[in-house]
């Protein structure tokens, strides 16, 4: 009994490490059932999430290119340089990632909130209305859990790295960091795949001379 479950576990680990975006199969996956949704590493490794994100990413990036609608990309187009555009791409990718998180985490809400604030500020600047300061919660939650000064210092650094997590208590911060890391890993996988596809497509298009629409 013990050997079969460890075999299934080993197979699941192997599948994960071979870069598979597939859902974990076998006894381990089934046994976790309801708990699977709670685990960030498995949540962000599902094929479906990856596909949804890739699609959103493609849409968001195309918007950056045409520079429609978003003030951030309008500024980038005005600068007519690759550097602001890469930043616009980065921000679009982050927003798509935050949307894929379905609003259950602090970091995802923080990314979307900061973008929303920037849009509002830009809108007000265009309309020449007086800017209202963004609402900030002044409370810092007490009782962050027992920590040595060294840990407290590192926790502060971590809180600055994960968006929207500066004032979180220690346990919530750790949970957010876990989810954020798993999400970032998926973002890297998806962006790499998209870049590979685009470079293949553009290479084949330029070499063939005419736009060939049939994929290899």
């Amino acid at each position, binding site marked *: 009994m013990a050997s079969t479950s460890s075999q299934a576990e080993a197979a699941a680990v192997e599948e994960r490490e071979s870069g598979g975006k597939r859902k974990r199969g076998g006894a381990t996956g089934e046994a976790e059932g309801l708990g699977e949704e709670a685990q960030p590493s498995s949540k962000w490794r599902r094929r479906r999430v990856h596909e949804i994100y890739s699609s959103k990413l493609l849409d968001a*990036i195309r918007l950056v290119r045409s520079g429609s609608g978003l003030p951030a990309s309008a500024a980038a187009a005005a600068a007519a340089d*690759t550097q602001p555009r*890469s930043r616009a791409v980065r921000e679009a990718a982050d927003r798509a990632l935050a949307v894929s998180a379905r609003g259950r985490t602090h970091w995802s809400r923080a990314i979307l909130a900061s973008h929303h604030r920037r849009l509002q500020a830009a809108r007000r600047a265009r309309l020449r209305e007086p800017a209202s300061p963004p609402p900030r919660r002044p409370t810092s939650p007490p009782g962050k859990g027992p920590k040595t000064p060294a840990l407290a210092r590192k926790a502060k650094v971590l809180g600055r*790295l994960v968006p929207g997590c500066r004032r979180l208590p220690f*346990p919530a911060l750790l949970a957010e960091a876990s989810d*954020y890391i798993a999400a970032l890993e998926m*973002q890297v996988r998806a962006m790499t795949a*998209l870049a590979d*596809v685009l470079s293949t497509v553009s290479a084949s298009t330029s070499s063939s001379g005419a736009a060939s629409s049939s*994929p290899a």
Partner: protein
Amino acid sequence: MSSRRSRSRQSGSSRITDEQISDLVSKLQDLLPEARLRSNDRMPSSRVLQETCNYIRSLHREVDDLSERLSELLATSDMSSAQAAIIRSLLM
């Protein structure tokens, strides 16, 4: 007078046990790339936090590099909606 009842009302931001924290820290440790190479010996919490910060920073750098690569690719290629549909299907 400290009231014990406040523990049940609060969402858990105080009265966190050491065990809960070390549990979260070990879960974080399992996500780190180092942990997958070595055996799962427990690293000290400060080390886990340090490695977590380093890992997040390296992931951010990777995303920035990929953003730059994507922006260059987009600059050189025009994309019709038909091409976008093909690219989408290639990604799935």
